[in-house]
């Protein structure tokens, strides 16, 4: 197949404008939730927390094309450290969150250094094990995590005496965190660091031949991804005020993979679009009552048939070919 510049160039401008559509969609959804508040605000808040997690997942799986079924482990570390330090030991949320992220990144470094020697299915199985082990720890280490009972009474975010307790306040905070996360992803994409990740994704052999330390960049992407996961985990516990092992269980892995692929793996805006769509779809099908799950499943299949590279890719030149 040959693409001559003469044919594709005139299409460029409208496509670039079309590229803004996913962003517009996200702004409208968040704006709607802000105005309506209540249940809609709760659903969208969860979607935004997922968007942070999936943005991290995308750095590892989309940008660097590696596989991890165990990022929920790092969300659990971030979430539980935040929960225990604030609810049990009376820390304020921000330092607890910072420590949670640091602990998750450190764990990722210890686990990732040997695990990243694995490739493909083996890496997938290895990371899956990390997620399952962490889940078991949150269930069994009852003196700290209170097992299935979970930890309640986790304080919301705040600075000094000002606590963000309203739905709308939380939405604003989460929107800012998501915006910062996507901004970071976009900057990484267009940098020496991001290009090295793309090179690892494209051909490890060619990357090595150009002097790129493949193992180092894989590990860096893994650590970044773990950092985002821990941030999302911590955001969750402070927004909801409660945490239990199920929050970061296997269900989270499945949901976030769906979000990543539905939204558009490897794109910047994809994780946000995917997180919003996958969170909202079941709600839109609520009217189908008993058939809600069926309709949701059918909608996902249709999405994957008609937008195999994700919704965001429908609006980028690369996705059209």
């Amino acid at each position: 197949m040959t693409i001559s510049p003469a044919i594709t160039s005139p299409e460029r401008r409208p496509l670039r404008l079309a590229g803004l559509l996913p962003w517009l969609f996200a702004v409208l959804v968040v704006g709607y939730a802000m105005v309506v508040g209540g249940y809609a605000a709760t659903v969208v808040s969860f979607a935004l927390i997922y968007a942070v997690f999936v943005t991290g997942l995308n750095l590892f799986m989309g940008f660097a094309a590696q596989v991890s079924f165990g990022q929920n482990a790092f969300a659990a570390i971030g979430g539980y450290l935040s929960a225990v330090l604030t609810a049990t030991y009376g820390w304020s949320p921000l330092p607890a969150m910072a420590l949670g992220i640091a602990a998750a990144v450190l764990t990722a470094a210890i686990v990732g250094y040997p695990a990243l020697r694995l490739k493909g299915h083996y890496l997938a199985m290895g990371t899956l094990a990390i997620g399952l082990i962490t889940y078991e720890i949150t269930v069994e280490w009852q003196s700290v995590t209170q097992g299935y009972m979970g930890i309640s009474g986790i304080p919301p975010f705040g600075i000094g005496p000002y606590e963000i307790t309203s739905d709308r306040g939380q939405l604003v905070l989460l929107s800012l965190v998501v915006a910062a996360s996507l901004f970071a992803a976009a900057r990484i994409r267009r940098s020496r660091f991001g290009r090295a990740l793309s090179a690892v994704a494209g051909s490890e052999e060619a990357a090595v031949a150009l002097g790129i330390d493949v193992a180092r960049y894989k590990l860096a992407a893994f650590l970044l991804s773990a950092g985002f996961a821990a941030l999302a985990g911590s955001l969750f516990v402070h927004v909801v005020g409660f945490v239990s092992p199920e929050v970061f269980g296997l269900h989270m892995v499945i949901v976030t993979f769906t979000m990543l692929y539905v939204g558009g793996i490897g794109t910047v805006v994809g994780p946000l679009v995917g997180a919003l769509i996958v969170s909202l779809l079941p709600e839109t099908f609520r009217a189908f009552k008993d058939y809600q799950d069926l309709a949701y499943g059918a909608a996902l299949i249709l999405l994957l048939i008609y937008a195999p590279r994700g919704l965001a890719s429908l609006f980028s030149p690369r996705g059209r070919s």
Partner: protein
Amino acid sequence: MSRLRLEGVTRRFGGLVAVDNVSFEVPAEGVTAIIGPNGAGKTTLFNLIAGALPPSAGRILFEGADITGRPPAGIAAAGLVRTFQLVKLFEDLSVLDNVKVGCHLQGKAGLFGALLRFASAREEEAAVDVRARELLAFAGLSAFADEPAFGLPYGRQRMLELARAMAAGPRLILLDEPAAGLNTEESAALARVIRRIAEEGTSVLLIEHDMTLVMNTADRVVVVDFGRKIAEGTPTEVRANPAVIAAYLGTGKSATGAAVTASDHQETARG
């Protein structure tokens, strides 16, 4: 001092000796070609030089330093960069970004440079952009800069791989059958680019089946057959060498030698 020096380099795969006690030097100036029938061990030799495989015996010296057994990324960082027999582009990246990846070794910016865009990172990025565009112009690919690499016609993909390797700033570039699959016109254009690379001070070592390309570009030729070096010299000298004629035409060779030559002819006809 020679750019590259092989001393008794040997590589065995089980009982098979793919590269057998090969010694030669690549001078800093000009183009050196390694030729030989299919299965002669040329690509294995390249993999040994580039660090993709460790040699079973022997030493490889790059600019006087022993690089035997160093990891491939380290060898690239030392200034010895290779291309592949089967093009390995970063298909999802644009043509320009492929060359920018090639500039990796020229830069230093890391994660924080990416996130915070310090002045130094911005300057580096601007320099990379200028350098990458120069190389695209050099390879005749400027018009395709923003196209995805997977959409390029095959001949241009080869040129892109060459431009990307040059972006790494090598002092010696290894080209593994750069003319494979190119038509006569593309092959001639490639020969001109290779000559220019050599004239601008990068030593070139290439493996090639396309004899026209070798005769048009190479200053020196090393001939290998069955893993051994059988001749060395200028293209004219090598062409007149009876051992080389025997290796290529199968005269006085065993049946296996003839079979190798036959498959080699098929390869040439296909390309």
